[in-house]
């Protein structure tokens, strides 16, 4: 039904999905994605933005090869390593923070790397704790550290800061940018938060409601660290004018 090709050393990621249809328990067919085509620029942050329920998570699952029931093809290097931050932290509650990270870490990920990463995301003194002892914000930091510990070729982030208070979410966005700038990684982030998208994106991909496809790709050239609130508001106003369907009411 589909064909996953491996593009060798170029670490080029491209997504072509002709159609993805969910078949419900009662046999109803629901087309989530139709004719979606997207190339990811290496070592850049691509942000997918679209209304809730437009198939963003479905798209990420297809890219991660967790779902092969679609027609189309995903091109990626044969041995691409993946980092995935889900909407929920999805840590193993019966393993310590350290074990959660070590379990999926890259083979050459050393104790020193763990210390550095732990310091960077602010969990250095929690490595021997169990996830149930952590708040949601802290658990998200661990999930972020875990995603980077795999030294991924492709980083997938599925609304990683959803259901946090704005202050915590903002701190985590800064942390993500810190870790990400230290190790630029091809990243695909999904969100329905417009300001988050504008803060983080190199390429901002606007998606249509179901069946989803790409409406527009906006490139933001200013480095993420230089985007201040004023600039984000200006960009937001501009985008709202040009794509009212995507930016109003969000």
């Amino acid at each position, binding site marked *: 039904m589909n064909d996953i090709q491996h593009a060798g050393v170029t670490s080029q990621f491209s997504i072509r999905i002709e159609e993805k249809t969910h078949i419900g328990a009662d046999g109803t067919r629901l087309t989530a994605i139709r004719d979606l085509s997207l190339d990811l620029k290496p070592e850049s942050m691509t942000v997918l933005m679209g209304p809730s329920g437009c198939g963003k998570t479905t798209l990420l699952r297809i890219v*991660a090869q967790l779902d092969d029931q679609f027609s189309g093809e995903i091109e990626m290097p044969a041995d691409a390593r993946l980092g*995935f931050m889900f909407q929920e932290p999805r840590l193993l*509650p*019966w393993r310590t923070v350290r074990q959660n990270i070590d379990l999926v870490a890259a083979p050459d990920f050393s104790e020193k790397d763990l210390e550095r990463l732990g310091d960077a995301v602010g969990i250095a003194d929690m490595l021997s704790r169990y996830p149930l*002892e952590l*708040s949601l914000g802290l658990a998200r930091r661990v999930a972020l550290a875990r995603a980077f510990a795999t030294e991924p070729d492709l980083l997938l982030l599925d609304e990683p800061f959803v259901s946090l208070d704005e202050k915590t979410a903002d701190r985590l966005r800064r942390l993500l940018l810190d870790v990400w700038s230290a190790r630029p990684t091809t990243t695909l982030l999904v969100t329905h938060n417009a300001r988050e998208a504008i803060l983080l994106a190199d390429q901002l991909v606007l998606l249509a409601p179901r069946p989803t496809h790409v409406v527009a790709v906006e490139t933001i050239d200013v480095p993420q660290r230089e985007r201040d609130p004023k600039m984000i508001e200006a960009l937001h106003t501009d985008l709202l004018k040009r794509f009212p369907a995507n930016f109003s009411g969000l």
Partner: protein
Amino acid sequence: MSVTFARPEARRGAWLTRGPWSSILSVAGFLLIWFLGAEIAQSRLLPGPAAVLDYIYEETVHGDLLFQLGITLWRVIASFVVAMVIGSAIGLIMGQMPAVNRVLDPWLIVLLNLPALVIIILAYVWFGLNEAAAIGAVALNKIPNVVVTLREGARALDPGLDEMARAYRMSPWSKFRNVTLPQLQPYFAAASRSGLSLIWKIVLVVELLGRPNGVGFELHLNFQLFNVTAILGYTLSFVAVMLAIEYLLVQPLERYSTRWRNKPV
């Protein structure tokens, strides 16, 4: 981050409900009632605790109580291991593959409802009065319970964690050890708990019907002699063995495997 609740030991008389004291008092109370009952009855059909303890001591030193306990314990352990291994494997497969579940489910219900005695008699008739038939019959009695429990466990596996393991390309063994097995731990614990107690009762029946040794054989022998002291002696000794397993093996293991839960067990 931590919340302090009112400490229970601050209440007056709370020492009674804490630690081993309540258990010790409860056992002591039972022994007292038994002692009084035996004193009032003055019958050889209800010997007092002292007489039974005396019998246990004599049989341990001069008789073969330890040998009989050992042989019964070995049958319990052998049946338990066989039942847990086979039952878990079938239960996990049935929980994850609806097609297999549909095929095996009627047989599961048949086995669940087949009286232990029928299985034991048929095993002895068909396979002879030997050790393998005895252990197989006991295990077969327990397997359906293990299957039902572990099937529930397999159905309750968290699909989110499964997805995480696949996204991070965990090896099948690593995923089984770190993701699947810990989720099944409460189901293993439940199956073993009820398993041990059910199995040792059935082992006694198996021994009574067709083995030349073991606690069940001794009970049968002493039933024919109407020797209640011996019957109580053997029963209490084996109950003591099972209690030791529960407190020294099962509970510490369970505490260890649930240490990640954010509350005392």
